[in-house]
């Protein structure tokens, strides 16, 4: 009874699928934008691979780029000032750094909305009070929070680095409908080709304390390295712990294998 019924059910599905095959066009609708979108360029960082470390000088430079350029529009909600001790700053330096920011607060006497100096426990304050203000100031596009950005985009850090360095004039053969509209900027690494963010980095835009030349490429690398850290401050520790756990388990597995062989030695199987 099961088999004849199953056979009929199977035939039903198969017929529906065969008809679906014959009614689905075999040609894809051409998507011109595809041919202009570029694969992200690879960015090699100290935090890559199986023996990563943080290049603290680079992270400090990257934070400077964030603070002086990106933070005008982008928030960094998940990062607290105390976290930047990871970047090689002392507790005192962190306190001073935090003090340089004004964070939302209430007046302790009147209860009115106010601001106060930042504390190490505060998070980086957002540039806009709310999404409406962010939209209004940015051609109706909300600048995304950058805390997780290198984990939240296909292509990760490579994509962020490529996007920051990828601004260029649209190619001559770009169809008119793909040309950037008002307030949009052409960037072949962006999936839609045109984005609301204008070219954020220009040569010499920041002055690095360590004397590194602030080229667009250098700033893009540095800020991307910083954003890899903000996305996962525990990345280096994760891999280091991973090796300890891996070798511990490797020893366990070898011992388990030997005891398995030993126990089965007299038993053919």
């Amino acid at each position, binding site marked *: 009874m*099961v*088999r004849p019924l*199953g*056979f009929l*059910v*199977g*035939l039903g*599905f*198969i*017929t*529906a*699928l*065969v*008809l*679906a*095959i014959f*009614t*689905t*066009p*075999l*040609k*894809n609708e051409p998507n011109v934008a595809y041919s202009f979108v570029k694969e992200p360029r690879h960015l090699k960082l100290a935090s890559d691979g*199986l023996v990563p470390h943080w290049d603290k000088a680079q992270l400090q430079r990257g934070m400077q780029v964030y603070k002086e350029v990106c933070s005008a529009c982008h928030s960094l*909600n*998940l990062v607290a000032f105390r*976290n930047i001790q990871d970047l090689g700053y002392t507790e005192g330096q962190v306190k001073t750094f935090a003090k340089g920011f004004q964070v939302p607060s209430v007046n302790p006497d009147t209860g009115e909305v106010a601001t106060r100096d930042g504390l190490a426990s505060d998070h980086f304050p957002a540039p806009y009070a709310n999404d409406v203000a962010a939209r209004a100031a940015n051609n109706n596009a909300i600048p*995304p929070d950058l*805390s*997780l950005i290198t*984990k*939240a*985009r*296909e292509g*990760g850090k490579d994509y962020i680095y490529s996007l920051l360095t990828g601004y260029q004039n649209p190619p001559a053969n770009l169809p008119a409908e793909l040309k950037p509209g008002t307030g949009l900027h052409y960037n072949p690494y962006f*999936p839609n080709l045109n984005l609301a963010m204008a070219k954020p980095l220009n040569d010499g835009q920041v002055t690095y304390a360590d004397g590194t030349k602030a080229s667009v490429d250098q700033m893009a690398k540095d800020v991307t390295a910083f954003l890899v850290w903000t*996305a*996962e*401050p*525990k990345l280096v520790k*994760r*891999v280091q*712990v*991973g*090796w300890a*756990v*891996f070798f511990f*388990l*490797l020893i*366990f*597995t070898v011992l*388990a*294998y030997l*005891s*398995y062989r030993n*126990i*089965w030695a007299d*038993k*053919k*199987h």
Partner: protein
Amino acid sequence: MSFPWAKPYEPQHPLMKWMDEKLPIPRLVYNATGPGYPVPRNLNYFWNFGVLAGAALMIQIITGIILAMHYAANVGVAFNSVEHIMRDVNAGWFIRYAHMNGASMFFIVVYLHIFRGLYYGSYKAPREMVWLLGVVIFLLMMATAFMGYVLPWGQMSFWGAQVITGFFSAIPIVGEPVRQWLLGGFVPDNATLNRFFSLHYLLPFVILGVIILHIWALHIPGSNNPTGIEVKDEQDTVPFHPYYTAKDGFGLGIFLLVFVALTFFSPNMLGHADNYIPANSLSTPAHIVPEWYFLPFYAILKAFTFNFLWIDAKLWGVIAMFASIALLFFLPWLDSSPIKSSTYRPLYRWFFWVLVADVLLLGVCGMMPAEQPWVILSQLGSIYYFAHFLVILPIVSRIERPLPMPNSITEAVLAKHAPDAASVPAAA
């Protein structure tokens, strides 16, 4: 039940004797996974995966309970509470990544466990109940994994919940009310997140209960084995402990090594970047894709693109997707061949490997956007999937001539170890 030669439990220590009289848990363990449970002596490494699935469930339950101590199931704070775990909770990043990748490891071992059962005919009499309970566990796992993926309240969480609950709206008349009832609203929102958290915490314990039944049902006929020949006498078996506890210990080591490599070195490899973007009901991701372990079924869902008879394409897809799992319940009766192991089934063996390739192909198709050639490949793949179980298998099991089989497990084992006449040097 066990075999007559099973070693009886004889407690020596007065405390164990006292315990055995009051609450014979040591006896239960001894007879279930100790020296008192005889198991075929010829099990290969594919028989490790049941124990590994159990280990994976325990890891999920332990890490999950810890995560629940720090997670907050509210749409306003859920996303940030996960990041709080990643950044501020001691070793929270480890617990969260272990739980995230633990789900993948659980599905990997369960899929291997299922395909082992398919290859060696472990679903056949007298083990039908073991198989049926296994399919129930698989369904519960899918529900649990889906609801767990919603909890971080990222973009893929939200849109995954939107798409999956949307399946129900394909049902005529009652579909939309059912969907609203499941969601607790018109779109996934706080009510949805809360109930998914509640159920995500509940279902693993239901799974644990069904696993106990699964093992109970297994212990009545005892384990199948690579020859598919039932145990005949004592020399066909070895006591579970120490023989298979030792082998499972080694298997567990390998499993944990893979798990650790994934968790510590590439924890986001199997995830989606979009789920690190907070849920936004106004912005639809370009590609909504489920987790990898659902991809073959997602491909079947998407393969139906034609309104056939009075049923529209979407409903066909939903029915087919559920049917593709539900038909596993009928497998013990679809395959009427008395031969269990594919080792002795020359024809079925080929179709088995085609099925493996087909499921992998469907997995790839499920991941791809709805473009050619992936649409036609998923359609062809789905045709084979249904044909395999509902058409080919019943016919093959009728016409196939099995290969000659040894009389017993021991005979098969000894034949494997007997010196091959051709390869023995003349002097020996």
